[in-house]
């Protein structure tokens, strides 16, 4: 009875004190977020020393130590050439971070500038036993639910190591569209975020991670680079420009939405690695020596499902809410840093600018940066593109005035023409054959108006038709391209001009054999199990595999794919993608048994696995197979929501903390009298530190009755049943419990 009274008094006091301290009506659990935010140092071994080469912030996204951060500060590159990753925590909120662990990259997408690290070792190099970590972590939000003008909180380390975690608040200023990520490739914010907070976290009001603030430092040898030397790395007794410097970016206004991190997190959680044949590797070729370049800048009011401009415009009417800047690019790599600066009537505008970020497209092709559902104020807009800090293209657009009934072409789609002249097919991937047709919409055309059709194949003009308009004012028209020896597989482009002004353009791909009006690019898509990759071709396909199978293969045959054709491989489990890679085709034009090997560290987890093959965003083939029961197991530690319980155990006589005290929370099914001292009856177990402080490493659920035992030798134990928390309980909850000697 007395012990229960002690605990009750402790809880009441803690609630009162915590409420008084908080008192802000704040719903976001900043304490948990702060504790889940880490400082990451990439370091290089030189002799017996570790030299810090890059720094950034990161966020713990799983209890067992997965850390989400930027790829540019962690993945080895020319700028960040370290091989060791060190994870540091702020033990107290107002203290700088202290190195605690070492980590390894388990998943990364260099173009998206996201990396997922796993804590694998203690800072002194000892291995961390799998499953032994119980770190505070945050959950990922559905970043598609983020709204314009929504308040967000950005958390990260603002300096290069000596500052505690910083919190900046701001609002969502808009969204940036790119081919790689659709309409929400980036979330824009007007919050003042220093570049060193890159890799940290941006949160919604529920404390869920909506994205990773991202900016990429520019390569140090180029103009615009910013880096800070902090160590005497050359041993000359001075710390100056001759030493290795730590790159830091400029301002951050771009947040990479958390939905892009989900596949990485899922793959890391599953413990699955995806292996592709070296001969047909999907990574981009070696970094070209030529300077990246942008050309053919133009504007479009919208894009279609293949990421192509619906039409080409020179001005935008007042009140418009959608605009896309298109351009061709070449010599790009995932390490290329590109940037868009926008001025409105000569004044720099951060809302429509994009801070320096990594390139997430291919080596060459057509790209866009756009925004939708965002008003564009009237004015003269100047767009300047930079590649690795060098100006690489400019364009001007007038926004304002009424929409004019100018002659336009729009909405180009490609296909094989039926008997009525209508192109049929999937729109943007055509089979090899003699002819390709394109249909487009025309409006406000006048008879006698000169117009031109130009066809390109792999960047080379192959046909030009200069004509005079003879059709009606508005309608649909079809044009065609025929080859004497047939149309070769590869990348094609159509440009339509009105009075020598680009009016519409679109790319399409020819690949695969003809199967009706559709291309047969990938065939015999299947899953199989085989002892080795070499034996996959002789193995029968399967739609079900036993639980615990260590590796399965996704296989397919292909035909008539030209080298360089961009294709996409997407793998998912239970309809959740965990791997997606778009890359130029680098194999033979036709072949069989392309194998994608899925290997699980502890076996492939149960689930329904799907492999999809796409070209030009057009799904062409898929295969599906079950492993085990065909459904992923439930992770009982997956939820980060709930109340954080911590506190201090004090000696009732001396008022000093008692070290080594066990604080035991039983699951809701057991009371103290039912407790048989079995581990499976525990909800959580904590032990006090040298100051008597403890932290329960699992969040407590609301309104669930827990039983508590506080025990150590030399003191009377404290026990209580029915310890539950309500929605009004402050989070984190600080308990102070006094123990009486006995």
């Amino acid at each position: 009875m007395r012990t229960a009274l002690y605990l009750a008094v402790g809880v009441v006091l803690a609630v009162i004190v915590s409420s008084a301290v908080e008192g802000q009506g704040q719903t976001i659990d900043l304490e948990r977020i702060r504790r889940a935010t880490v400082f990451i140092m990439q370091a290089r071994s030189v002799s017996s020393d570790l030299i810090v080469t890059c720094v950034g912030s990161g966020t713990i996204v799983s209890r067992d130590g997965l850390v989400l951060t930027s790829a540019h500060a962690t993945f080895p590159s020319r700028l960040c050439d370290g091989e060791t990753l060190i994870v540091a925590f702020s033990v107290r909120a107002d203290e700088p971070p202290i190195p605690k662990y070492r980590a390894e990259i388990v998943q990364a997408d260099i173009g998206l500038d996201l990396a997922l690290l796993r804590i694998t070792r203690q800072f002194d190099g000892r291995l961390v036993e799998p499953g032994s970590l119980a770190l505070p972590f945050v959950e990922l939000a559905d970043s598609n639910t983020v709204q314009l003008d929504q308040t967000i909180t950005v958390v990260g380390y603002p300096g290069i190591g000596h500052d505690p975690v910083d919190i900046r608040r701001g609002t969502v200023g808009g969204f940036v569209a790119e081919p790689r990520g659709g309409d929400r490739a980036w979330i824009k914010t007007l919050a003042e975020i220093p570049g060193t907070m890159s890799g940290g976290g941006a949160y919604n009001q529920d404390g869920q991670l909506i994205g990773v603030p991202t900016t990429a430092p520019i390569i140090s040898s180029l103009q615009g680079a910013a880096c800070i030397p902090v160590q005497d790395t050359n041993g000359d007794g001075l710390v100056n420009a001759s030493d290795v410097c730590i790159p830091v970016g400029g301002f951050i206004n771009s947040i990479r939405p958390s939905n892009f991190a989900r596949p990485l997190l899922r793959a890391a959680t599953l413990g699955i690695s995806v292996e592709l044949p070296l001969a047909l590797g999907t990574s981009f070729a070696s970094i070209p020596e030529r300077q990246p370049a942008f050309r053919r800048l133009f504007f479009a009011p919208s894009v279609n499902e293949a990421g192509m401009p619906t039409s080409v415009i020179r001005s935008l009417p007042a009140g418009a809410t959608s605009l896309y800047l298109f351009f061709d690019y070449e010599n790009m790599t995932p390490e290329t840093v590109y940037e868009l600066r926008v001025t409105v009537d000569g004044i720099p505008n951060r809302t429509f600018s994009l801070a320096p970020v990594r390139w997430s497209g291919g080596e060459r092709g057509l790209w866009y940066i756009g925004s939708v559902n965002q008003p564009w104020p009237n004015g003269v807009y100047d767009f300047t593109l930079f590649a690795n800090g060098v100006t690489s293209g400019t364009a001007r657009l007038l926004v304002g005035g009424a929409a004019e009934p100018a002659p336009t072409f729009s909405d180009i789609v490609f296909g094989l023409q039926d008997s009525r002249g209508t192109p049929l097919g999937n729109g943007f991937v055509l089979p090899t054959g003699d002819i390709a047709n394109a249909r487009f919409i025309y409006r406000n055309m006048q008879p006698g108006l000169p117009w031109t059709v130009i066809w390109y194949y792999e960047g080379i003009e192959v046909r030009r038709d200069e004509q005079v308009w003879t059709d009606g004012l508005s309608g649909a028209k079809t044009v065609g391209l025929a080859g004497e020896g047939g149309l070769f597989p590869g990348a094609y482009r159509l440009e339509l001009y009105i009075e020598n002004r680009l009016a519409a353009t679109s790319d399409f791909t020819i690949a695969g054999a003809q199967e009706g009006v559709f291309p047969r690019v990938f065939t015999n898509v299947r899953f199989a199990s085989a002892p080795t990759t070499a034996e996959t071709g002789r193995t029968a396909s399967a739609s079900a595999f036993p639980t615990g199978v260590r590796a399965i293969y996704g296989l397919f045959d292909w035909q008539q794919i030209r080298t360089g054709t961009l294709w996409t491989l997407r793998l998912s489990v239970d309809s959740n993608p965990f791997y997606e890679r778009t890359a130029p085709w680098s194999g033979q034009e036709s072949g069989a048994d392309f194998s994608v090997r899925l290997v699980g560290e502890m076996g492939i987890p149960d689930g329904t696995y799907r492999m999809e093959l796409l070209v030009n965003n057009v799904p062409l083939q898929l295969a599906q197979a079950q492993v085990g029961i065909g459904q992923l197991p439930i992770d009982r530690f997956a939820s980060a929501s709930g109340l954080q319980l911590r506190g201090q155990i004090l000696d009732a006589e001396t008022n000093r903390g008692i070290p080594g005290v066990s604080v035991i929370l039983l699951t809701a099914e057991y009371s103290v009298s039912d407790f048989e001292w079995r581990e499976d009856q525990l909800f959580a177990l904590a032990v006090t530190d040298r100051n008597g402080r403890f932290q329960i490493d699992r969040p407590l659920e609301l309104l669930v009755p827990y039983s508590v035992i506080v025990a150590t030798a030399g003191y009377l134990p404290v026990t209580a049943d029915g310890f539950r928390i309500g929605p009004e309980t402050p989070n984190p909850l600080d308990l102070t419990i006094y123990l009486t000697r006995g």
Partner: protein
Amino acid sequence: MASRDLLGAAARPESLTFRQRWSHYIAVLYCLVATLIGLNLRDAALTATISYTNSQAGIRAQYPANWLIDESGNYVFRVRDLSRPGFKTTIQVATRPVSPLTSTRNVLDALNLSRAQTLAAYEVLSEEFYALPDDVAATAMTYTFVDTQDNPFLQSIPVVVQGLDILTIRGGQALVITFLADASAFDRLRPVFDQFLDNLEF
């Protein structure tokens, strides 16, 4: 005079009656018996054990009452004394598969290599012959390491831990019985482990 009589009366020893004398004897005896019973109950409580049986592993044991038992790890079972301040005294029983050619040396090497990866300042102190109850031959390996707190947000001073492995190979598997305790209290706590070994059947 009255005061002298009074003082004299007060100083004069008063002889106890037979009833009073035996009352005192009985009270003292009662206290002694109660003390003995109390001590006995205390010893019984401190040395109380709980039976554990694992038919799959073929192990039967008696472990101290109020120690937390865990069967979810890569061991047959592990019990810890959570009331112990600092490092929680631990007894663990684990099995490892061996081949006919595997020697005790091989198993100990594997244990050492594995522990050196995860334990700070791990060092083997001694290896010697040990006779388990029923004269089962075994090897005792004593070692030490430093235990650190896993929670990066707490400030704990590392504890020097002493460990003792009793290893025997039997029936195609190696049985490793481990005792871990704070090095400063290892010898004092050792009888608990000895009692555990005395009652262990495998």
